């Protein structure tokens, strides 16, 4: 048992938000009453405000990507819990530009409903609003799961690319179309060898026997639909890369942006070793690896695992990905 470093489990999120604002006073402000984090120096020429949000526990998503070149605001919920529609409504009103506001929503029922209620309220006030629903996780693609694929790692890539497109002056409908196209070009897959620690009591959220891996794990402590043998990394990456490429079906000479994402407690050494295996397999298949993003971006508290995301990228998408951004978790 290793409890979290917190005054109390219930205050972890609110204390962290206050600390986040104190740590980045030049970049963001925390509107505690409205329940959102807002960019202090957002991009001035945008026609559309960009808003995302979701449960806490996925840091740096989403608040870490609030700032110039990415999100205008983010609405954090409690741990693994969707934000209230009131937070989304208040944040949307605060950041809407003359063309309105775009919601970047990961595909989970609570997020969809709360962003959806806020969207109805915004429309009632005459504020244009559109949504990009991000659903990249192939492990949750099944005829038995009516709610569809979960939204996971692709979110950070889509937030970056849409941020640059918004800075370039794209309108609401164009941004929504681009976001939907990006979602269609993105697929993710995650594995874990140990569950995250439950914040309430410091115990593992579920048990994974030694020598086994959860294959296709999510980011909310939900188990994968299968447990497999923990193979050496090259064999594991062979399976994961095959699965991803089988779904995305790039042709020879197509290009991808890759995200090698830690779920909370794997080391940087491991993530770069994963990136090596991924890169070698893409080379072998004639798929050009345009850009790599390696680190902890969309976490599941301290889950010991990683996810791979591939996004089929053309020149325009790559240029937007490369455009400068300055947020607490993205400076390049």
């Amino acid at each position, binding site marked *: 048992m290793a409890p979290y470093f917190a005054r109390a489990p219930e205050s972890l999120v609110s204390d962290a938000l206050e600390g986040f604002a104190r740590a980045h006073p030049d970049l963001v402000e925390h509107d505690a009453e409205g329940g959102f984090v807002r960019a202090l120096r957002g991009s001035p020429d945008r026609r559309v405000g960009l808003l995302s949000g979701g449960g806490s526990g996925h840091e740096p998503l989403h608040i870490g990507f609030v700032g110039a070149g990415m999100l205008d605001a983010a609405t954090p919920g409690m741990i693994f819990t969707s934000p209230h529609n009131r937070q989304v409504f208040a944040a949307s009103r605060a950041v809407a530009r003359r063309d309105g506001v775009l919601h970047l929503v990961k595909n989970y*029922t609570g997020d*969809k409903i709360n962003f959806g209620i806020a969207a*109805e309220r915004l429309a*009632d006030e005459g504020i244009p609003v559109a949504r990009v629903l991000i659903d990249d996780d192939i492990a949750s693609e099944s005829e038995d799961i*009516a709610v569809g694929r979960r939204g996971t790692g692709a979110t950070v890539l889509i937030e970056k690319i849409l941020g640059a497109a918004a800075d370039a002056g794209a309108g609401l409908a164009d941004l929504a179309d681009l976001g939907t196209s990006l979602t269609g070009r993105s697929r993710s897959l995650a594995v874990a060898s140990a569950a995250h620690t439950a914040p309430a009591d410091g115990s593992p959220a579920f048990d994974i026997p030694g020598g086994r891996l959860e294959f296709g794990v999510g980011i909310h402590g939900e188990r994968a639909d299968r447990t497999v043998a923990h193979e050496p990394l090259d064999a594991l990456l062979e399976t994961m890369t095959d699965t991803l490429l089988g779904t995305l079906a790039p042709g020879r000479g197509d290009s991808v942006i890759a995200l090698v994402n830690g779920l909370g407690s794997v080391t940087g050494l491991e993530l770069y070793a994963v990136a090596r295996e991924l890169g070698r397999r893409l080379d072998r298949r004639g798929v050009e690896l345009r850009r790599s993003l390696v680190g902890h971006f969309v976490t599941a508290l301290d889950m010991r695992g990683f996810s791979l995301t591939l996004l089929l990228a053309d020149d325009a998408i790559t240029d937007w990905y490369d455009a400068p951004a300055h947020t607490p978790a993205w400076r390049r």
Partner: protein
Amino acid sequence: MTSFDAAFTGGWIRRFAASVRATEPELTALDQRAGDGDFGVNLTTGLTTALRMLDEAAADGEPEDASAPLLTTATAFLDSVGGTSGPLFGLLFQRLACAVRDAGPGLTTSGLAAGTREGLAVIQRVGEARAGDKTLVDALAPAARALGACPPDAPPDTALVRAAGGAWEGVRSTARLRARRGRASYLGDRVSGVPDPGAVGIGLFYASADGGVRALAPFLEGREQPSR
């Protein structure tokens, strides 16, 4: 055309609050069997907030428009209630308020019918539930149908009795359904025989217009078995 004033809609919300308060233990028990157990509390929280806001508004004088108490209730539910069902109720009250205002200033059957129809549409748009998924839609859809079938110039209280009857039939139907949305969808056959708490809330709302909860009481107390 018969129309009622803000005192009627305000009274309707107050009777709804009394109905919910009287049945909160049963609502909570239902939601503990078919959900996560917070529905009764969420409904009570929203209505307590709404009553406080109605009292504050009344201190400044009774409103002219019959839609005003409905809009106050909508704001209370949208802003202060957690979970998902609570804010969905807020959307229904908001659509009702807008339709009643547009058909107003008094409450008419045509305003009620339009508001209920639009409330059903927005709840389905946001929550994506269809008839038969074992959600509040299964009570709201027959209420909307019953109101739509009323002559537009019928007195609103008569129309609301018909709406409550439709909702009540819908509540009964949810007991026989297997849940396809919400927490209950993970419980499979374990919730067969249990009516959907959200649907019961809709039934209580329409039944409260003319005096209350009596029609639903036997069901909530478990004396009536669902027919199969």
